[in-house]
């Protein structure tokens, strides 16, 4: 007799889905996010978190997922991978010695995701303003490296630019601080995946306007003509 439903691990994903979210360091947000997966048809393969909840240098766990995070007292990024995904692919997490960037190198014996490549990389970053408000904590060179295989860059980058939010007027400081990122991704032939102008952050308090700061980029090997 087949096993009854609800036992063991969560159902295996039928396709690869990656979710990114800023948890604001809240355990309630973390649980709300993972509980919402139960309403969906399949579980995501990779969940990339920015500002995850941390208690005594430990992150919360969830049934069916394995977590990876930088070895720091309070990691600012984390990745949760579905166990079925880990059983199908080889995953190597890299932390680069910082607490706000996390890279996952995925490899398999067969070509991945419709490309001719056997390797795939995902970068999760949480870039915040530094003390002088002109420089962000994660540099463009760390975010958009020149790789010869598919790379997906996701994260809360806290940068504002007309390329991601065309209908909004930005200050000179916002444009100056975000321009190096968009210049670097143009030089490295990255493509912007977010629908332009679709807000990703709606401030809960105060009067700040909605903004597009949770961004996703794909590099040239994912282009159709590569």
């Amino acid at each position, binding site marked *: 007799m087949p096993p*009854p439903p609800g036992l063991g691990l969560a159902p295996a994903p039928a396709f690869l*889905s*990656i979710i990114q979210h800023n948890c604001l360091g809240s355990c309630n*947000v973390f649980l709300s996010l993972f509980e919402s997966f139960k309403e969906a048809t399949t579980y995501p393969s990779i969940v990339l978190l920015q500002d995850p909840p941390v208690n005594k240098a430990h992150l919360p766990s969830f049934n069916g997922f394995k977590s990876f995070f930088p070895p720091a007292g309070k990691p600012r990024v984390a990745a949760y991978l579905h166990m079925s995904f880990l059983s199908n692919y080889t995953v190597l997490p890299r932390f680069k010695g910082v607490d706000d960037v996390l890279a996952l190198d995925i490899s398999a014996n067969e070509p991945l*995701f419709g*490309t001719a490549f056997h390797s795939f990389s995902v970068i999760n970053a949480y870039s915040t303003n530094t003390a002088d408000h002109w420089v962000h904590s994660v540099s463009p060179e760390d975010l958009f490296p020149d790789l010869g295989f598919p790379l997906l860059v996701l994260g809360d980058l806290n940068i504002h630019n007309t390329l991601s939010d065309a209908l909004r007027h930005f200050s000179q400081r916002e444009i100056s601080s975000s321009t190096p990122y968009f210049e670097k991704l143009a030089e490295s032939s990255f493509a912007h995946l977010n*629908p332009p102008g679709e807000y990703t952050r709606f401030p809960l308090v105060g009067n700040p306007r909605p903004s597009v700061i*949770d961004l996703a980029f794909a590099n040239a090997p994912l282009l159709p003509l590569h």
Partner: protein
Amino acid sequence: MQTPPSFPSIKSCEASLPSTGSDHIPITITLATPSLNQKPPRPRWADTDWETLDPVIKSFKVPAAPLCPTPLQLGEWMSESLNRLIALLKEHTPVPRPSHHSKPWWTPHLSILRREYHKAARTARKHNSPHMREVAGTSRMWYFKAIKAAKNKSWSSFLLTATPQSLWTAKSFAYGRAQPRFPSLPGAETPQQMNSVLLDHFFPPKEPFSPPPRLRPNRSAQPPTTDEIAAALSKCSRLRPQARTGYPTLFGNRSTRSTPQTSGI
């Protein structure tokens, strides 16, 4: 929001998950995984029909091995013989057909009963005899009794093996899911539809502004007579040479009419 498939490997970039309480929106990026989707189905070796297969295997003959083969020829002969044997086994082994309609409590015995029930029902309809109808009714009764027994057995097995983690799943199966606490609006399922319904209710669209009707000349009326014109002009003040504005005043205002004129032209 959803991105059109600009890359062959990226299917969508959308915000399909509900709000989590954060001021950020969860973003889902879906990648195509043909390597995962195109895996051939694995035969269910436990359900192999060995009774039918046994005489076939006994009569199976391994192809003749080449004389003085090279290692390459030996490998090819071995692969060919193995492939023939595997193909023979697969012919008598069912392949799983995963479906959303699959039931965890379904058994091969139920498939046999279902087949017999439909066969008896078809025969009863064809011959329309009381005996056949009675046979079809009996088959139907046994079929549905077997379904009920299989469901009870599956549920009992699930409860016996329930863990603290699956306890709430059992409760949701037994009592159903709780109703969502967020109110629903009739005719609005998506947040965008709810938004438009609320806006239409509390801020209904204004009726278009219509200008006042224009007074049209009455062409059937007679032109005024000289007496009527004189009577109308008699109600006007006398023409003054100039007013303060520099223009001659034809009609007097209320103060002018109430004040008696002391000086003529």
